[in-house]
C-alpha cells in the first residue's frame, strides 16, 4: 500500500476521532440550557399524562398510611388511599393538627408514579426533613420523619 494512502488513512482516522469529540461537545452545549417551556405547560402535559390514573396497586412493602409519631396529636393517622393528604390546622386537612406552629394549610403528601412526595404549601414555619427545610417536592420513604411545627409525621406500612 502506498505511502500516500497510508498517510490519508492516518489523517482520516484522526479526523473521525476529533469529529466524535467535537460532536460530543456540541451535544453538551445544546444540553446546557435544556428545553425551556412556559411554566404550567409542563403541568398541563403532566396532567394529560396522568389522565388515566393508574389504579393504585398496593405493592408489598409500599406505605399504606401516614402516622403522627410525635407532638400533641400523637397517633393520628390518615390512609394514603385518600391522597393527596393535606396536613395543617384547617378544617379541611386530612391530618388536623392542634399545633400553634402549624399553618392552616401547611404541607401535602402526594404520589407521583410509585413514589411519595411531601410538599410545603407556603407555610409560615416551614416543613423539615431532618434539619433541612424543604423548598420543593421531596421524596418520602417509609420511616422518613417529616417535621411540621412541633409535630413529626412519617409514612408507615
Amino acid at each position, binding site marked *: *500500500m502506498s505511502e500516500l494512502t*497510508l*498517510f490519508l*488513512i*492516518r*489523517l482520516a*482516522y*484522526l479526523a*473521525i*476521532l*476529533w*469529529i*466524535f*469529540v467535537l*460532536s*460530543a*461537545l456540541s*451535544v*453538551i452545549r*445544546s*444540553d446546557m*440550557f*435544556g*428545553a*425551556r*417551556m*412556559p*411554566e*404550567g405547560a*409542563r*403541568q398541563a402535559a*403532566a*396532567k394529560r399524562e396522568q389522565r388515566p390514573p393508574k389504579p393504585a396497586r398496593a405493592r408489598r412493602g409500599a406505605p399504606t398510611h401516614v402516622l403522627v409519631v410525635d407532638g400533641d396529636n400523637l397517633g393520628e393517622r390518615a390512609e394514603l388511599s385518600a391522597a*393527596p393528604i393535606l396536613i395543617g*390546622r*384547617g378544617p*379541611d386537612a386530612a391530618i388536623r393538627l392542634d399545633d*400553634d406552629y402549624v*399553618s*392552616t*394549610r401547611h404541607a*401535602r403528601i*402526594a404520589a*407521583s*408514579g410509585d*413514589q411519595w*412526595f411531601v*410538599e410545603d404549601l407556603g407555610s409560615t414555619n416551614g416543613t423539615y426533613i431532618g*434539619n433541612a427545610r424543604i423548598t*420543593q*417536592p*421531596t*421524596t418520602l*420513604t417509609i420511616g422518613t420523619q417529616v417535621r411540621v411545627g412541633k409535630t413529626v409525621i412519617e409514612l408507615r406500612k
Partner: protein
Amino acid sequence: MSQAGMIMEFVHRRRRGAELFLLVLALAVGVGAYAAVGLGVDGEVPTDLITYGGWLAALVVIAHLVVRFVAPYADPVLLPVVAALNGLGLAVIYRLDLAEDTTFARQQLTWMSLGVALFVIALLVLRDHRVLQRFTYTSGLLAIILLLLPMVPGLGTEINGARIWIHLGPFSFQPGEIAKLLLVVTFAGYLVLHRDALALAGRRVLFVDLPRGRDLGPILLMWLVSLGILVFQTDLGSSLLFFGLFLIMLYVSTERAGWLVLGTGLFIGGALMAYRFEPHVRVRVDTWLHPFDYYSDAQGATSFQLVESMFGMGWGGLLGRGLGLGMPERIPRAESDFIMGALGEELGLTGVIAVILLYGLIVERALRASLICRDGFGKLVAVGLAGVVALQVFVVIGGVTRLIPLTGLTTPFLSYGGSSLVANWVLIALLLRISDYARRPAPTLSTEDDADQEATQVVKMA
C-alpha cells in the same frame, strides 16, 4: 404557583436521539481503528471486520436500548464516550496482538461483553441510587474484605511486584477495582450523615480552619489503610487512589480547605516515609527523575519500559506513525499500563489529546450530574465516581508521560484488564442512574384548582 403563565422554567430533555447519533460516531471510532490497524499492518482490512464490528455494535445497541427504557433522562454523552474509548482500546490491543502474537484483544472483547452485561444488570436492578445509602457500612466492610483478599496465602498471587490479584481456578481477578466502587458508596453514606460535624466544629489557625481532634478518626484510618496497601501489597497506585478519593469527598462534603491542607500534609509525610523505607518506591522515584540512567541492562533496566514509551511518543510526534505502522511492541506490557505510550506513538499528540479530552468529558458529566442532583448522597457518589476516574487517568497518564512517578493503575476503558473494565462499566451505570434521577423534571404536585381555595387564613387565637 404564581399567576404569571409565561415564566420559563428549566427542564432537561431526554436526548436519547443525540445519544444514538453519538454512539454511531463512537462505533466509527472503534471499528475504524480496527480497520486502520489491519490496513497498516497487513495492507488489507481484517477479515473478521464484519463480525467484530457487528459484535461491538450489538453491545452498544443493547446498552443504548436499556438506557432508553430504564433511565430515559440519563446523560446522553457518557455512554458514547465510554464506547469510543473501549473501542479504541480494543483496536490498540489488537494491534499489539498482531505484533506480539498474543490474544489479548479477544479476551478483552469477552471482558467488555461481561462489562456491558453487568452495566445492564446494574441499571435494571438499581432503580434508585438512594437505596445504596442503606448499605453504607455493609459495602465498607465488603471493600475492606476485598482489599485484604490478596493477602490470603494460596488465594492471592503476586504479579509484577504487586500483590493485588486473587486466583480462583482459571480466573484471576483484581478485587481492588470493585473495592473502589464500594468505597465511594461507603464514603458518601458516611459523609452525608457526618458532614455537619466535620464541617462546623474546629478552630481557625493561620487562616485555615482545622478540624477537631476527635473528627480526625476517619481520615487517619483512611491514611493508615492506604499506607497498609502501599506497604503490604506494594501497590502505589491503589493507595494513592483511595486516599485521594477520600480527601476529595471529604473536601466536597464539608467545603473546608482545612481538610485538603491536612490531607496533603499526611500524604507528603507518607510519601516521604515510603521513599525512605520502601525500596520499590525509591526505584520508581529514581527512574522518574533520571530515566536514562536506568535504561540499559547493566543498570538494571528498571526504566526500560518508561524510556521506550517516551521514544515511541517522541517518534509519533504531532500526527503519529499511523495505526499499525509504529513499533509499540518495543514497550514491554504496552497493552496494560503503557497503552497511552502505544497510542501516542501511532496516533500522535493529536490522538492523545482527543483521548484525554474524552476522559475530561466523563469527569465533567459526572460533576454536572452531581451539581444538579437533588439529594446529598447522590451528589457525593457522583463526585466520588468523578474523582475515581480523574485520579486514575491523572496517575496513569501522568506516570507514562513522566509528569509524576510511575504507579501501577490501569487506564480506564483503554488498557487490557478484565476487572478494571468490568468495574468501570458498572461505574458508568451508577453515574447514568444518578444523572437520570437528577435530570428528571421535579414532580408536579400542585394543581391550580386548589391553589387559592383558601386565600384568607383564620388566625386561631390562643
